[in-house]
């Protein structure tokens, strides 16, 4: 199988707490892959290991056949890995346009002269195109912290797309969104995946979205992989249902989360 991203026995410990324990998984090129599990299962930790915010205690991470375990966080963007953040990490006091232009920093604005020149027509045009595609064009001069929550979530995605990623890591992109916004996200993600061939790895609680767009799902519980397979296979897996018992059924979680927004 052609794995774009491969985790090999990744373990992450914080002091005495083991957040992720010996996780091995692969994300096939060109697929949408979801990482699900009850709260505290270690999903975000996996993300932070892949995007190098954390350095895994043990194990290797390979991207496009290359060992990236020792690279610094900022090197990942240059390789084509973009991410969004669960709790919004926007450049708050900057405009929507500037946020998206920054997304292009490491892939479209690489020459020194381009970075030092006071005008950036190429980057700007590219950012405008992304804004058009994500429907944020009409608020491009607003400050990021002035947007409503749904648009802020969308801006996170837009900034990640500006990087022209090969692999897109989405950390709960649908959390807190209204169902109409979720449908929109669904369309955008499916479109990106089909038309531009972007591989997507997402952590998500909103099962409606996960089940509809994922090609493959990995289920984590207490830092370990308990199931992996197609949405249908995972949905019927007794271990998965058990892991969610005592908290929420996967189906209920979808309604619970979606109702927040």
């Amino acid at each position, binding site marked *: 199988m052609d794995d774009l991203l491969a985790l090999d026995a990744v373990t992450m410990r*914080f002091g005495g707490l083991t957040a992720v324990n010996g996780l091995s998984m692969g994300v096939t090129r060109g697929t949408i892959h979801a990482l699900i599990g009850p709260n505290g299962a270690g999903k975000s930790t996996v993300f932070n290991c892949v995007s190098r*915010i*954390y350095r895994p205690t043990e194990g290797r991470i390979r991207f496009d056949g290359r060992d990236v375990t020792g690279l610094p966080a900022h090197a990942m963007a240059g390789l084509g890995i973009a991410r969004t*953040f669960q*709790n919004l*990490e926007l450049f708050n006091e900057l405009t929507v346009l500037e946020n998206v232009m920054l997304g292009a920093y490491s892939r479209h604005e690489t020459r020194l002269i381009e970075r030092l020149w006071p005008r950036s027509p190429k980057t700007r045009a590219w950012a405008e195109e992304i804004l058009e595609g994500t429907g944020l064009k009409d608020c491009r001069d607003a400050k990021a912290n002035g947007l409503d929550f749904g648009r802020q979530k969308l801006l996170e995605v837009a900034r990640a797309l500006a990087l022209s990623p090969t692999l897109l890591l989405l950390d709960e992109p649908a959390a807190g969104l209204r169902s109409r916004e979720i449908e929109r996200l669904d369309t955008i993600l499916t479109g990106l995946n089909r038309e531009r061939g972007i591989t997507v790895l997402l952590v998500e609680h909103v099962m409606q979205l996960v089940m509809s767009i994922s090609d493959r799902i990995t289920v984590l519980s207490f830092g370990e992989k308990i199931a992996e397979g197609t949405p249908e296979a995972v949905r019927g897996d007794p271990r998965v249902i058990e892991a969610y018992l005592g908290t929420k059924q996967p189906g209920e979680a979808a309604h619970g989360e979606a109702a927040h927004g």
Partner: protein
Amino acid sequence: MNTEIVFLFLQQGIASGLVTGSVYALLALALVIVFRTTDVANFAEGEFYMAAAYLAFFLIALVGLPIWAAAPAMVVGIAVAAGLFQRVVLRRVAAARGVSVNLVIATLGLSYVLKGFVRATGFGDTPRSFPSVVPDGSVTLGQASLSYLDLAILGAALAVMAAFFAVFNLTRTGRAMRAVGMNRRAAQLVGINLGRTERLVWIFAGGISAVAAILIAPKLLMTAEMGGVVTLAFAAAIVGGFASLPGAVVGGFIIGIAENLVGLFVSTRAINVAPFVIIMLVLIFKPQGLFGGRLRVRKV
């Protein structure tokens, strides 16, 4: 310099260093508790200490209070003022634009207001001495000589530190302070009142600085510039890793001893560059400090 003198200087330097170091330790402790819980480097720390010394002086010389009444009144006064600063100013600054640069600028502002105020009273420019309650006289330890006052300073500072550590480790309030330092969001979720806890931290910091002032004031000449000692407290805190309370205490003693040794072996004038040199040495050889441990990772 023959070995005998070197040995004598070493003993005296360490003994005197423990005394001044105990005061730096208190100041560093005040800096670190504020930084741990509120993420603010308090540049007004030195001026809390300076204002405390002057407040005591005013209470004694102008109001006519006896020192046993003036000292506690002053400690309470400074602690309350520090709490008010958090309540009135910092809360408002955080609400207006909650970036840490702005909070630090506000503390710089406070340091200048306090300095200017003391100068404007007309007592700030001529150095003044502070009455001592401890009788004159000294004891000899090995070849080092310490005055009764020195012993009183060291003893009182250690007692205050012990009391603080007891509060911090054993009481509910102390646990709340530690929890906020570790993870604000989680602390809030388990029902800790963030604003109240931060205010208490500032009150503690003010109180500790005031105690430091009353202890050392009889040994120093008071000027409006005496808060400059905060550079040494910063160095002490950095030696300790800037987030560790025991680190701040040990750092304080190390800086005190280093300062006295530099004074005896090199020149008292070289003391001004000592904090910078020490900070750079720590950053080169032990950047996380002696007690720093792992850096806190922000949850995203």
